[in-house]
């Protein structure tokens, strides 16, 4: 029953969601919304479970960590618990809560995102090295596309923007759509495997 019950539940709920998507019925719609709300509640419990894992790992690092581990883990636990207590006590719209969120969290996220530019540069360097015919084609098409997207490209040769547009709209789009159709069918097949209980590794174990 350890695997059968979740599989039966997954099947019933999955079929309900699919049927409510394709057919207009107030009863079905209401049932689907209820199930979605249950999903939110289950996810909230999962967040609690995940938070306990985070606290356990970092508490252990504080007591038994190497080097500066205790400092990083301490900062994480302090921030996490501090913000949770502040949010519960004063509410997430309180100026102090907002200050720490806007002054620490938002710039931190933006900083990590901004690093993408450097990562693109290093990945491009590796990808554009000519090792074979494929990478040579990649380099040439990328160079054309870059020249098509910078003002100086058009000054060098007026046809660069048109070539760039053709590269994006014909070979690139054809490849993308092929992949999209394949991925869509693969996703449906994967969903059916989960719904029918053929794929059940997510319940733990090989399922065999």
């Amino acid at each position, binding site marked *: 029953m350890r695997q059968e019950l979740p599989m039966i539940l997954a099947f019933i709920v999955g079929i309900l969601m699919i049927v409510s998507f394709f057919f207009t019925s107030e009863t079905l719609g209401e049932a689907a919304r209820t199930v979605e709300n249950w999903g939110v509640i289950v996810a909230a419990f999962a967040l609690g479970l*995940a938070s306990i*894992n985070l606290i356990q790992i970092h508490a252990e690092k504080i007591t038994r960590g190497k080097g500066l581990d205790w400092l990083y883990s301490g900062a994480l636990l302090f921030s996490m618990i501090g913000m949770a207590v502040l949010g519960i006590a004063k509410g997430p719209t309180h100026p102090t809560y907002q200050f720490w969120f806007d002054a620490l969290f938002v710039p931190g996220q933006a900083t990590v995102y901004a690093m993408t530019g450097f990562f693109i540069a290093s*990945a491009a360097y590796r990808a554009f090295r000519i090792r074979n015919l494929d990478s040579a084609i990649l380099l040439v098409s990328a160079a054309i596309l870059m020249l098509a997207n910078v003002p100086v490209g058009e000054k060098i040769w007026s046809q660069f923007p048109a070539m760039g547009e053709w590269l994006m709209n014909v070979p690139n789009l054809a490849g993308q759509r092929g992949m999209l159709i394949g991925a869509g069918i693969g996703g449906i*097949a*994967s969903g059916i*495997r989960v719904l029918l209980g053929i794929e059940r590794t997510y319940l733990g*174990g090989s*399922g065999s």
Partner: protein
Amino acid sequence: MHYCPGIGGISAVEAPQTFSGLAILNYVARLTARFDVPLIVTIRQPEVFPMAEETVRQAYLEEGRSDAYDPSNIRFLSSQQFAYAAAVFGIMSREKPAANLMFGAFWAEALMLAEVGAEVGAMQITGTAQLSQVPFFVASSDYTLIGEELFAAAAYLSGDSNQIGSIVGQDMAKLIVVFLIVVGVVTRSFGSTFFEELLSK
């Protein structure tokens, strides 16, 4: 070894990718248990965390290596995308994994994670059906599963004949789609909108 089953959840359109990532995790965990290789699994979505934990625990149990299972290696890092990415940077830099496997749904952090993996010298195998992230994985990884290959890999690695059979079904569905595209192109080229109208109903 570092493993990430994507940063997508289990209730949106990217759910099949997450399930595929977990199915591949099962296979990877069995191998790491068999060959006594430390496995670190990093998780972004809270609801995926218990599933990943159970997948790895059960894989170690089935391999008869429950003593080697370390629950502290299944780590929930953050539900925030870039906080998660930053935490993975730290883990990769400190632990220096020999292999970095990432299968599932990824967004802007895909390139960052793969580049950090390349920087620490890890052998990288990645896979995603997020088409905008595929080029980044191809540029930074040793091997990449593109789009549907991710779903096929999950079924293939299970070794279950029913699941492998579903890959054949997948290919047949693709053949039908190709047939519909050809019929659509031919009929539209001759000025008929019948087929287009039929499909749009």
